[in-house]
């Protein structure tokens, strides 16, 4: 089949193949992480992004480096697309000193100042007020970076969501609120949590621009993101509701008994965002089978290398235990006995 340098929905072949590669990178990375967890190399909570790859990829790929991304504990994918070194993310999961947060944050607390990937937060919805703060600072400093804030469908039931949306609209903060609606918050399904089956009225309550998008179709995600980013650069927030699905349990500790097997199977076989994009690329003759395979293999190689890097890295030291509590070392400990 001849490769055509066509565009799809205005996206170049290069961009489309980049999307394809990044989604595989996330998936292979997460599979490696799952392996590390099973082997006991990764401890604590491990929340995988498998199934949701099109959301981070479609949205974050179009951000500038100075644009801020802030997320929940399910943030490995966001970090990888923002450009954070997979080795350092994996090392963080392994609790190694070479991790982005020196092994002191773990899977839920990825942060990279140089990429403006400014944190995984593990208190549900706590990142929304903080995102407002970045928006406020951007306005004050007359900087035109936007802040993209990711959270789940569970987060919108917290008070922080409402306080933040109201403030963002009221103060015209350049923040994009992205609800990755994967239909479950841990074991609780949407029907048991939301009194109305859409975020549209909640956005309307604050007069905020709102868009709902199919999170498995990366091109749709990308387009909605483009509109939201434009709005944010012009000083207006948006609430994006992205419908998606996690293919694994809430965390590695979750066998997922609350979801019917057929439901999970249906999403996996019919709505896998990577397979959906692959089908389009083939249909349109944008990429050959061989090319697609090469991109997937490249992703596998990077994930494998990250895992090896993490394995080979040292653990933090006892000095690291007490370092970096505060800027002021005299303030870090209530009182240090010196007599």
């Amino acid at each position: 089949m001849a490769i055509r340098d066509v565009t799809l929905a205005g996206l170049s072949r290069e961009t489309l193949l980049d999307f394809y590669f990044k989604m595989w990178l996330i998936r292979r990375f997460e599979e490696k992480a799952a392996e590390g967890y099973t082997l006991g190399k990764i401890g604590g909570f491990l929340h995988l992004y498998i199934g949701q790859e099109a959301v981070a990829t479609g949205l974050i790929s179009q951000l500038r480096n100075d644009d801020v991304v802030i997320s929940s504990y399910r943030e490995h994918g966001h970090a990888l697309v923002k450009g954070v070194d997979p080795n350092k993310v994996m090392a963080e999961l392994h609790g190694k000193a070479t991790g982005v947060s020196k092994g002191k944050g773990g899977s839920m607390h990825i942060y990279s100042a140089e990429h403006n990937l400014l944190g995984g937060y593990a208190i549900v919805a706590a990142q929304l007020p903080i995102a407002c703060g970045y928006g406020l600072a951007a306005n004050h400093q007359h900087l035109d970076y936007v802040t993209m804030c990711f959270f789940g469908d569970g987060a919108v039931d917290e008070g922080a969501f409402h306080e933040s949306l109201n403030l963002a609209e009221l103060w015209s903060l350049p923040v994009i609120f992205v609800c990755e609606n994967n239909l479950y918050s841990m074991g609780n399904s949407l029907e048991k949590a939301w009194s109305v089956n859409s975020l549209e009225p909640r956005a309307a309550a604050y007069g905020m621009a709102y868009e709902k998008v199919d999170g498995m179709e990366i091109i749709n995600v990308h387009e909605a993101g483009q509109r939201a980013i434009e709005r944010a650069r012009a000083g207006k927030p948006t609430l994006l509701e992205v419908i998606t699905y996690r293919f694994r349990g809430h965390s590695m500790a979750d066998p997922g008994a609350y979801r019917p097997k057929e439901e999970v199977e249906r999403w996996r076989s019919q709505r896998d965002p990577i397979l959906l994009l692959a089908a389009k690329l083939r249909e349109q003759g944008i990429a050959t089978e061989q090319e697609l395979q090469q991109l997937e293999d490249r992703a596998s190689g990077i994930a494998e290398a990250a895992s090896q890097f993490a394995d080979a890295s040292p653990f933090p030291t006892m000095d690291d235990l007490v370092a970096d509590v505060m800027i002021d070392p005299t303030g870090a400990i209530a009182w240090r006995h010196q007599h």
Partner: protein
Amino acid sequence: MARLNEDEQQIMRSITYREALREAMREEMSRDSRVIVIGEDIDAYGGTYAVTKGLAEEFGRERVRDTPLAEEVIVGAAVGAAMAGLRPVAELMTMNFSLLASDQIVNTAAKVRYMFGGQTHVPLVIRMPAGGGAQRGAQHSQTLESWYAHVPGIKVVMPATPYDAKGMLKSAIRDEDTVLFIEHELLYGVKGDVPDEGVEYTVPLNRGEIKREGRDISLITFSRMVHICLQAAEELAKEGIEAEVVDMRCIRPIDLDLALDSIAKTNHALVVEEGWKYYGTGQGMAAMLYEYGFDSLDAPIGHIAGVDVPTPYSKHIERAAFPNRDEIITAVHKILPQRVAR
């Protein structure tokens, strides 16, 4: 308050605690354009306790912002703005309402530097009035500094005088870390000597101060109780007991050396605080003094605190719920029995 040289003393004037705080904010806002002030009713209303009065007119409503009634996003946005390079001063209407923002204080402000491996920090001041004694009832009379002082990653300070209020607030705004700045609702109108506006001074956030020297017993205290202890010391002096009033002023980190040096001299200690007695700040201080200063002590440390009840409304029982001068005097007599006998 023996910190000033003669030149400075000549230009001292007496102003209120409230005015001292306002001056600190004005001076710091003039000095540093990154300083912004946000909170409920700080502009149009003039500030719940009138601390922020006039700031919006002077510095503009971009830098002095009334917020909706939304404590979590006030503090959360202030944390984010601080991480993003501003120097926010967030005012919470009272400490009682800080509980709605406590997640952002404890789980965000105190944690991000550490859990992100030192890549960020939070130069933020959260001002909040606390304390009881004005018949405001159980939900508006609390002193909850120990809840926050328990948490590594933030500083907690409680100035008692206008001089300290101004000097410590200026230090707090310049500090690179998060400072919970706890004011006392009954101190706003209290006057004290403060150098003239524009005469630059700061008070460090890790040092207490001896507010009155004495050789017989150390009254270890902070915030409004400093004044009550000074009154008690005055009375005790009439019977020949010289009480040393140790204003701890910084709760976290704590200047324990100051208290240890004081008890090394007096060999007796009474801890006085307004908050509840158990699991609180005073017990923490007493425990530290026992642990590191046991050999200095000739008698067990006394401890006077708020009565263990939600604060009542009705005047005379509310008064009984907080330590007073006579209670302190009685406690001192108990700790120094030989003196009473004399």
